[in-house]
């Protein structure tokens, strides 16, 4: 029961604060739904919603692709498998804020290694700056976040792939299924459950990502990477409007819960 109190009390306090006029300027009074009204009327809030949707879709798609590729490769590997798996999960163990810093250095317009590599490959002709182009900035943030999320996806999918009995593959092969068909009709249906779990966790975690964005772009340039989490963060650390911060926090929670609900519904089916 103590556990229960421990869980419910912060949530209760969050809801309670979201109904208060708590801006650290005026005296605290009960404000009903005033905060929600203000948040929903705020242009910045809707920018945040738009950016978080783009960000989350981008991250989830790239993470699933990356996770699938690496898990498929590692499931076919026997020698030095432990080393490969360790290397795969290294990015997971890097503190998110440090990832942001590292990527900021890699994307540096002046001394960036990413610019240099892309130039060597011949994709671009002059150093690129993710801080000059809103689309590039979003792409940069998505790449940095994907980097930290691939390991988890990879781990889950690897476990799933390894649990598929190889006899199924043999059978499909006898029936004349090509490599790609076997992947599509044997592997994918069997890893559907874990894949959905991975997608769910990646999506709801990308909704709360700001540790990476704070050092990398700080929401900029302009508002190009100003995700919803950043909106909450700004109310807590910059405008110090705790009432609106709590209200937008509640909204963020409900969006996340709705997404989780949809996924759980599909998994049950």
């Amino acid at each position: 029961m103590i556990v229960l109190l421990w869980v419910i009390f912060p949530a209760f306090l969050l809801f309670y604060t979201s109904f208060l006029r708590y801006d650290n300027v005026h005296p605290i009074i009960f404000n009903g739904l005033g905060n929600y009204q203000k948040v929903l009327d705020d242009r910045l809030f809707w920018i945040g919603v738009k950016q978080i949707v783009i960000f989350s879709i981008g991250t989830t798609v790239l993470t699933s692709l990356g996770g699938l590729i690496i898990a498929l490769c590692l499931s076919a590997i026997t020698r030095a498998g432990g080393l490969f798996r360790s290397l795969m999960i290294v990015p997971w163990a890097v503190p998110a804020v440090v990832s942001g810093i590292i990527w900021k250095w890699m994307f540096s317009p002046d001394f960036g290694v990413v610019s240099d590599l892309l130039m060597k490959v011949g994709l671009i002709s002059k150093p690129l700056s993710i801080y000059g182009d809103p689309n590039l900035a979003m792409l940069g943030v998505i790449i940095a976040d994907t980097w930290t999320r691939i390991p988890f996806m990879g781990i889950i999918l690897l476990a799933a792939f390894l649990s598929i009995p190889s006899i199924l593959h043999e059978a499909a092969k006898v029936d004349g299924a090509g490599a790609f068909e076997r992947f599509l009709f044997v592997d994918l249906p069997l890893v559907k459950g874990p894949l959905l779990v991975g997608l769910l966790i990646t999506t709801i975690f990308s909704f709360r990502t700001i540790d990476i964005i704070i050092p990398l772009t700080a929401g900029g340039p302009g508002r190009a990477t100003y995700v919803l989490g950043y909106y909450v963060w700004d109310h807590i650390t910059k405008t110090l409007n705790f009432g609106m911060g709590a209200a937008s926090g509640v909204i963020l929670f409900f969006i996340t819960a709705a997404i989780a609900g949809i996924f759980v519904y599909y998994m049950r089916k």
Partner: protein
Amino acid sequence: MRKSLLESRALSYGIAILFLSLMMLPIYWTVVTAFKPDTETYVFPPVYFPKEPTLTPFKLLFESYPFWDYIQNSLILTAVTTAFVTFIGMLAAYGISHYPYRGGHFVLITLLVTRIIPPLSLLIPFYLVVSYLGLVDNVLSMIIANVYLTYPFAVLIMKAFFDSFPRELIDSAIVDGCSRTGALFKIVLPVGAPGIASAAIITFLWTWNEFIYAMVFTSTSQAQPITVGVFDCIGDIFVNWNQMCAGALLATLPGIIFVFVAQKYLIQGLTAGALKS
């Protein structure tokens, strides 16, 4: 030996190596930069293999920032949180797993729901509690928050491990005159050790890596953990990138060590915590 889409093993190795090299690039780049003198840091095109590796960035880092304090704070914070969460979580997981009681299922669902609430949303309530208790800029504030954040997942991991433990063994121990708690310590613990280790390691890393709560709760090196410390090295005008990377490397070190030493536990724990719930 399992065959998949990638028919030839050579191809699998090839793609894996290429992919992992790309994944390792940021780590490599951090390590290399941390040992570069200024002359090799601020050049374009960048230097891939430093010609004169040096420890100067580390030296300057410790001279210009209270980095020992950061490390110390992080260690205290992480050690206390991990010990507390692992012990309390173990009792809870054992209870839920082996002694179904009314509302046990409800507790489990509550734990899952807490995992869905974005920590960012709970920042304000926690800040209010912490400032009410007068714990702002105190390591204790972050311990409270991190225990809250890591506890559910730790319980889920350990529960998954305890679930696979045969009930008969415990029953027979109790018949032999062992108390329930005795059974926990004498029988379940030794067998469930991998699960407990997984939970402890994952809790450790999460706490060590936590940033936003620490950023809001602390303001001086008296309490700031290493993640905040590294972030503070980003100057207003100019960033000392080689020092920055030295700091980033130090902050990442525990993670890298655990990944290589305890890879098996990490993978088991993450899979168990994610899938079996």
